[in-house]
């Protein structure tokens, strides 16, 4: 094997690289000790305690920058009574961690954390039982401090009790073991600092982008100029001057280069001349919504049906209101483009990536290469923030394809244009709403239709780009995520019918992006109920309260607390005073019960609108939030910041641009996102309910952002914004009545 000069530099390396290599060693050593249980029904799948009392926690849920690498150990440390710093966390390694499902939906604590709590509580009960025998004491007389059990002056440590042996205990997550009484909590509910931050602010953290394996090469993929173009010809002589090129890989419409150095791969990919067929498959962007409306409907899904809305709508004397809302196509836009490393060795594929679903990726890669799933191992390494299924899995497929072709480990780093152009997109969403109101402004019927892509039954397999381009088994599933959620409403009108018109196709490969469907659907619902409140000349908070289920006390409390937090001015919208000045101000409210089953959120946005330009500035954003038991209030606030700010960006600014061939918004100039000067003041009221189960926190907060802003703009200028993003020209058009 020839080692390129820059490889030698690499191997001489720094401390940080040694970490990377030792990480490989540790995992291999663990595996060498024998097959580790992975079933969700075994304590040993989730945790191990060695002779020194060090705890290793194995979780299929991964930290995507959300802080669960702190919060999950925090739950377990509490339950076991061990210090947090004695817990080592292994995340998302298909050889070592149980499959707890994709890390999505703000379910890491709600589902994953509760499985871990159950495992820890079960383990602790067994440890105490054993300790009682060894110490010749009654179980109820035992005390545990920092992993040491004592009875009077007799002591035994967890390390002595279990030390490296397996627990061999079963778990039933439907009937979890009795866990600690929240009144005894020392760690849960406390703002424990995140374990990863010191390394991240000093450059010691190893992201997937930093990971290196011995003998590794660098790959780049040359993307077609049009989404469905076919590769006609490749001129390899065009890169004969680029140093260190190892191979050009052509596989159907997949074209990639592998080089000794990363810069060599970048230059080769840029310079490689290839000819492609002309292919126009995308709709005219200016007519997107006509196209969506005209799309073939695969099936209608009725998501709620109460009373007889059709009859109520047709009743004599009923006034009917109608509105149509749309929500643009969005890209994930992680700051670090996707990256992955792959190695084929002895018929085994090892893939390192920042996939939020390594267990599922493993199956997809096995399908792509026609390998038994047992021969594929996917290992999670943290990447740049991930807000859903972005390009990580696709980069993993690229790396695997290139690694197989060259017989050496290959790292693939996507370019900015790869990421903006080729990550799967949040699909366009079009929503029609109708309501019937009586003479007193009371709502007698509500009907809605959501034009959203279908979901291949039971599938969350977003086809891997490399497999599709290469003509390898990829499947053609459509998997936008459970985007029907929150199409039904929390308001108790006498007649309600909500329907998802599941479209057979959508212009871009869809996937889930933060708060998928729940954001778009809540936006339309919460704006439209505001329209009804305005039509009834009612205060928007009071109007909502009138129709919420009186038995849903937590929902009512959240809405009232958001109003109190914002010192809500009770009156109908729009604002009657102060109209006519250059800067109009307004406030809007929005409410959501996430998926109608869990986390409650209510928001109040305060905005300024410049009449001469249509510029919207969100000045303050208030949020009341009830996710039940809070594990880490500081982590929760951090996630709320993230969800509110990112959604502000999506609501005000973001929109995918494309022509008939491909995505054209390939950088941050053509797909701008929110910048520091646009930052609002954020004010929260966190409702902690230690005795309730913890629900998801994070993405539910994003659901209420677009509608709170739209409603605030209506309050300010009396104009309803029904098309995300709320760009200045849309505001101007709406003011002129031409929208």
């Amino acid at each position, binding site marked *: 094997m020839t080692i390129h000069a820059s490889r030698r530099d690499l191997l001489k390396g*720094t401390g*940080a690289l040694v970490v990377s290599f030792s990480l490989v060693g540790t995992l291999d050593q663990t595996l060498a000790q024998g097959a580790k249980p992975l079933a969700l029904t075994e304590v040993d799948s989730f945790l191990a305690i060695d002779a020194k009392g060090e705890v290793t926690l194995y979780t299929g849920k991964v930290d995507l920058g959300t802080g669960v690498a702190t919060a999950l150990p925090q739950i377990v440390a509490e339950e076991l009574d061990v210090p947090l710093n004695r817990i080592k966390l292994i995340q998302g390694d298909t050889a070592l961690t149980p499959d707890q499902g994709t890390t999505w939906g703000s379910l890491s604590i709600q589902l994953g954390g509760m499985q871990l709590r159950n495992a820890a509580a079960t383990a602790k009960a067994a440890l105490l039982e054993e300790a009682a025998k060894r110490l010749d004491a009654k179980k109820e007389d035992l005390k545990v401090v920092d992993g040491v059990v004592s009875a009077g002056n007799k002591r035994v440590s967890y390390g002595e009790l279990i030390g490296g042996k397996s627990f061999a205990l079963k778990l039933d997550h439907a009937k979890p073991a009795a866990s600690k009484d929240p009144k005894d909590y020392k760690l849960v509910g406390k703002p424990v600092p995140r374990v990863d931050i010191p390394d991240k602010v000093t450059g010691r953290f190893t992201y997937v982008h930093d990971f290196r394996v011995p003998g590794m090469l660098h790959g780049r993929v040359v993307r077609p100029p049009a989404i469905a173009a076919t590769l006609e010809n490749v001129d390899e002589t065009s890169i004969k001057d680029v140093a260190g090129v190892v191979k050009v890989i052509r596989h159907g419409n997949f074209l990639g280069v592998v080089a000794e150095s990363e*810069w060599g791969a970048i230059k080769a990919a840029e310079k490689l001349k290839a000819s492609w067929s002309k292919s126009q498959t995308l709709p005219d962007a200016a007519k997107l919504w006509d196209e969506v409306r005209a799309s073939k409907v695969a099936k209608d899904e009725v998501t709620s049906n109460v009373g007889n809305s059709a009859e109520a709508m047709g009743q004599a004397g009923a006034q009917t209101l109608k509105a149509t809302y749309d929500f643009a196509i969005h890209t994930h836009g992680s*700051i*670090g483009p996707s990256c992955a490393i792959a190695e084929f060795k002895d018929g085994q594929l090892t893939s390192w990536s920042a996939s939020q679903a390594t267990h599922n990726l493993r199956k997809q890669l096995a399908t792509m290469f026609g390998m038994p799933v047992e021969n594929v191992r996917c290992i999670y390494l943290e990447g*740049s923030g991930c807000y859903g299924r972005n390009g990580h899995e696709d980069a993993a497929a690229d790396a695997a394809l290139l690694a197989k072709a060259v017989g050496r480990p290959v790292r693939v780093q996507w370019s*900015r244009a790869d990421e903006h152009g080729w990550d799967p997109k949040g699909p366009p969403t079009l929503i029609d709403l109708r309501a019937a109101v009586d003479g007193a402004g009371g709502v007698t019927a509500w009907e809605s239709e959501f034009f959203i892509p279908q979901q291949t039954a039971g599938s969350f397999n977003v086809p891997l780009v490399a497999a599709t381009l290469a003509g390898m088994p990829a499947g053609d599933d459509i998997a936008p995520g459970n985007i029907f959620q929150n199409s039904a409403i929390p308001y108790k009108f006498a007649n309600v019918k909500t329907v998802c018109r599941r479209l057979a196709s959508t212009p871009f490969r869809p996937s889930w992006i933060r708060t998928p469907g729940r954001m778009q659907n809540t936006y339309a619902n919460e704006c439209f109920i505001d329209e009804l409140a305005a039509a009834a000349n009612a205060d928007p908070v009071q109007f909502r309260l009138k129709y919420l289920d009186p038995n849903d006390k937590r929902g009512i409390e959240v809405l009232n607390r958001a109003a109190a937090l914002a010192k809500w001015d009770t009156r109908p919208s729009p604002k009657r005073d102060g109209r006519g000045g250059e800067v109009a101000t307004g406030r809007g409210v929005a409410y959501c019960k996430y998926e109608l089953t869990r986390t409650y959120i209510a928001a109040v946005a305060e905005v300024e609108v410049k009449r001469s330009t249509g510029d919207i500035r969100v000045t303050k954003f208030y949020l009341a939030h009830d996710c039940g038991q809070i594990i880490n209030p500081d982590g929760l606030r951090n996630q709320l910041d993230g969800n509110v700010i*990112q959604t502000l960006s999506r609501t005000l600014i973001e929109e995918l641009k494309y022509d008939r061939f491909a995505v054209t918004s390939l950088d941050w100039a053509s797909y701008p996102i929110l910048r520091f000067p646009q*930052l609002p003041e954020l004010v929260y009221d966190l409702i902690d309910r230690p005795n309730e189960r913890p629900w998801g926190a994070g993405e539910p907060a994003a659901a209420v952002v677009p509608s709170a802003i739209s409603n605030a703009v209506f309050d300010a200028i009396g104009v309803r914004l029904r098309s995300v993003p709320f760009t200045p020209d849309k505001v101007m058009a709406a003011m002129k009545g031409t929208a």
Partner: protein
Amino acid sequence: MAQRKSLNVNGKAARIAIDDADMPLLYALRDNLGLHGPRFGCGLAQCGACTVHVDGKAVRSCVTPLSSLTAQQKVVTLEGLGTPQRLHPVQRAFIEEQAVQCGYCINGMIMESAALLAKTKKPSEAQVKEALANNLCRCGTHARIVKAVMRAATA
């Protein structure tokens, strides 16, 4: 084809082998020297994830050709700004404010802020926001980042 290039990185002389004199500094730091602080974000000087200091100024290493640097110019990365044992005040403030989500952009936020505070000791919040206006964060950590920089300024 390989050629040698001398750099001064984090106070030490470094000699690296390169194929292209115009390779951006970012790749020398990450691939030749194995540093993790500067990060690839766009390669277009649009996001700031790759920011390092060259003679005390914040520059975008993804568009800084090695040929533009001499062996005497002092390149400082996040690793050289401060260490876990001897944190730079901005790094310490980011920990104290827990001003990180995924942390991918944080290198740029810290390097840009440290350069700002070196010349403007007591910036207003508006000045901090303006100084960071061309540094992008996708997680939405902006509010904590501003707080952290303000905290570092008063430390």
